[in-house]
Structure formats: C-alpha cells, structure tokens
C-alpha cells in the first residue's frame, strides 16, 4: 500500500528526524518509494529499497497482488527512474536486514503473514539505529490480522488508525 495514505503522519516524523539512511522493506511497485525518496532528498537522504519481487504467501488471498507479479519489478524500476537517491537491494527482507545495520528509518511493508512480519520486525529491529524510527503499514486491517498481531508484541509501539480499516504503526528505538 502507498504511504500517501499516511503522509500526514509520516511526513512530519521524517521532517523532524531528517534521516539520511532510510530503508523501505517491500518496495513492490514503488508507490511509497518515490514519496520517501522525494521527501528525504530534501536533506540528502538515501533510500534503500528492498524487495525480491517474487511476491509473498499472502498473495494467495489477494489475487490483485498476484496479478502484478510478472510486471511489478519493471513497474518499480520505471517509477524510480530519475530518483537518484534510491538504491535497490534485490533480496529477501531478513537477509537484507543483516546487511543494513544502522538504518535511521525503516518502513516495513513486505509479506503481511504474521510469521514473516515477526521475522521482519526482529531482523530490522536489530538493524535500526538508536533513536531511529521503524514504521509499518496496514496495522489494524482485518484483511491482515498477522500484521496487527506481530506489531502488538513490539514494546513501545504506537499506531494511528485511519477512517478506513488500515492504519500506520511505528516504534522508536531509544537512544
């Protein structure tokens, strides 16, 4: 899903922190990527986009996502063209986390299966810099109960539900 739904929340958080090292986990079509990239470009930030573009198990319940599988990576690349502060890590999320220590902002939006979200939170929680911010998508959405369940076990978690079912969730790693 696109962060455009959360821009009024995430935008001020990013502007306040001005993170230079940002990671988007689950870039998929690049909708959020370009928003992140354009925002953090204001202060010279770099966005690492992580995806293997092979989809995730929850696609079985979301045929519209599965239908994008064959063209998603090409769509992403077309969208980020010209966004020169984007660097792509084409690999599985938890593997990428082991290579990206010290990230100041991490946006988790990969597989929405509970086990996968838990694995992402564990792996990227380690990669998050002290004082850094980790946020995620689709919290509280009844279509993705695993997202909510996994985030609910993160100490100090905050969330904001919107008018629909979706919601933004975030946690700050203490200094």
């Amino acid at each position, binding site marked *: 899903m696109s962060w455009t739904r959360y821009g009024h929340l995430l935008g001020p958080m990013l502007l306040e922190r001005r993170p230079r090292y940002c990671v988007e986990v689950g870039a998929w079509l690049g909708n959020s990527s370009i928003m992140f990239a354009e925002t953090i470009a204001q202060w*010279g930030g770099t966005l690492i986009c992580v995806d293997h573009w092979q989809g995730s198990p929850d696609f079985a319940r979301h045929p519209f996502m599965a239908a994008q599988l064959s063209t998603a990576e090409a769509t992403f690349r077309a969208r980020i063209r010209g966004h020169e502060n984007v660097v792509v890590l084409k690999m599985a999320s938890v593997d990428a986390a082991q290579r990206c220590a010290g990230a100041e902002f991490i946006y988790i939006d990969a597989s929405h299966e509970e086990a996968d979200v838990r694995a992402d939170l564990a792996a990227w929680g380690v990669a998050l810099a002290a004082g850094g911010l980790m946020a995620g998508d689709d919290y509280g959405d009844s279509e993705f109960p695993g997202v909510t369940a996994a985030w609910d076990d993160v100490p100090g978690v905050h969330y904001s539900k919107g008018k629909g079912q979706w919601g933004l969730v975030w946690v700050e790693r203490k200094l």
Partner: protein
Amino acid sequence: MNEQMSTVEYWNTIYTGRSTAQPGGHETDRFAPVLANLEGPRVIDVAAGYADLCKRIRRERSDLTVVAADFADEAMHRSGFKPYVLTDATAMPFPDRAFDTVICTQAMGYMADPPAFLREARRVGWWLLLTVSDGEPAAGVRWAWTPDTLHALLEPFGELEFLSALPDLAMLVAKLRFTA
C-alpha cells in the same frame, strides 16, 4: 592472516584495533584522481573500510548518492557513514547496473580472486575507479600490479579511460568503462 580465522574475522580484528596491522584510508588526498573522475549519480565504494573516502565524496559532491560497502561489519559500524551495506565484493546484493561508478581503493590486492571482483563490479556498475599498490605486494597483501599487468587484467572488462602510475604514492590509478 591467521589461517584459523575467516577473512571477515581477520578484518574485524584489524578494524577493532586488536591487531598491530592498520587499515588504510584515513587520509584521502591521495585519491584525488578518483574524486576528480566520478561518474554519477550513484556511487559505491567497495571495501570501503572506515569510509573516509565516502565521507569526503559526500562533503564535496552533494549531487551524488554514495553507498559504502564492506564485509567487515566492525569497520562499517565504526565508520559512522550511512548508508552502508555489508557484502562480499564478489557477490553483491544489488541488481545489474545499480551504480554508475564502482570505487575500489587499495583493496583489490587483498582479494582472493580479483577477476571475480571485476566481474561483479561490471555487473553492478558502469564505471570502475580503481587504485592498487604499484610494485611488490606489501605484507599481508596478496597481489600487486605493474602498469602492464594491471592493464592486462582490466582490458578484457572494458575500455580504459586512463591508467596512471603515481610513483610518489607507489600507486596505480585506473578508470575503466565497463563493456558487456
């Protein structure tokens, strides 16, 4: 190198100061030919160590996106430079042609398989800016090159824009445009 150690462990030991050997790269003036020949906008410094060169590029070339890469997590962590990616130089997690310039300064001589690095650099980048020691390998260094041997090594990978010897620095510097 202690044969009981992995290569990563060896370099982490050096970077954490537990060895008498010292990593290079704390002064970057000697890399002026690299700084002057960067192709942008995306640059990666492979085997970046403490990322001093990355920091200087960021200071002097705010128009470029710079990523530091090294397999020694201690070095990357201590560098304070962001973003960095932990990776082996011969198997990087980036898609093809992800970077305009691949930089590698004073590191290829330590690699077990320099041609494997060059193949990987060609996969992820369009240009290579390389420096190596000129002459006999120093202690702990596997390889050194003369202008002729470096030319022979690089030529199959692309078109050499320049290959210069800097005798005062005992260093060779080359810029290569990769070809398929």
